């Protein structure tokens, strides 16, 4: 068959209409996927702010509330807020235990306000804060491992909260 006979208007361009049609269809599909991805990102499903990106957990007696990033990112700053209402804290000290397993997955960049002292234990690390009234502490963290990260925080005497974060790579 004559090579040029297959070409419209005699132009010698290696045109393949079917290939283009398929490529266009794939493109349309990809645009839709991208748009959905962006909508999810705006909602906060990929972390980094947004209405769904943060969550909170409250202890049964209501004395301890932890606000954390449900969807977080590795190597990005993440805040962990601990709201504590001390009960009969005559000593003026609040003892907050954070599980070692959780602390192994994060890097603590700073704690505001700073704890009076930190005690390392077998299962957990105890942060001792000076406080007489209901208050809040913010841990500025950087999450070090991707995947699911579980933590347990206990406020003495017996208010305990468990939470879980999904850390994206």
């Amino acid at each position, binding site marked *: 068959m004559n090579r040029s006979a297959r070409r419209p208007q005699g132009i010698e361009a290696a045109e393949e209409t079917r290939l283009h049609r398929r490529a266009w269809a794939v493109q349309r599909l990809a*645009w839709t996927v*991208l*748009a959905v*991805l*962006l909508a999810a*990102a*705006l*909602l*906060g499903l*990929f*972390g*980094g*702010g*947004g*209405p769904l*990106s943060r969550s909170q957990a409250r202890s049964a007696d209501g004395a301890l509330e932890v606000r954390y990033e449900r969807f977080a*990112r*590795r*190597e*990005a*700053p993440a805040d962990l807020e601990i709201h504590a209402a001390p009960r009969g804290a005559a000593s003026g000290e609040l003892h907050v235990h954070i599980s070692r397993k959780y602390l192994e997955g994060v890097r603590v960049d700073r704690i505001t306000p700073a704890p009076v002292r930190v005690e390392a234990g077998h299962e957990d690390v105890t942060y001792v804060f000076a406080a007489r009234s209901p208050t809040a502490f913010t841990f500025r963290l950087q999450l070090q491992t991707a995947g699911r990260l579980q933590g347990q925080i206990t406020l003495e005497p017996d208010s305990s909260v468990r939470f879980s974060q999904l850390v*994206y*790579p």
Partner: protein
Amino acid sequence: MESVLRGAAIYVFLLLIMRVSGKRSFAEITTFDFVLLLVIGETTQQALLAEDFSIVNAVVVVATLVVIDIGLSLWKQHSPRLAALIESRPLVLMGDGELLEDRMNRARVDADDILAAARMTHGLERLDQIKYAVLERNGGISIIPRESG
């Protein structure tokens, strides 16, 4: 959410800057223009990524930029006014063999630029061989030669 907003803000800013800088600026890229582009890239990178070096952040930022770009291109197809706003319109610099000095000054194009384009695209030697010269939307100059003979 923040990554998407960052990406959108940078996109709009760069679009404005490029539009305001004039169409000649990056059309025929000189070595210096190229260096300038690299510096702009380096600088905006800071704003785009902030302290967040996660892969998912990079994915979201890139997706944001691409989706805005696709969205604008679709919108431009339906709205000639938007296309004119973002991409401008062609400008005739030389009509029927006559240089339109006023337009050339405004567009920062001189006769040498037109001659250069004429040499490169049609191998023409003199201005009087050119019938039309048009500054196109992409910043290039297109030349229509006078019929010879």
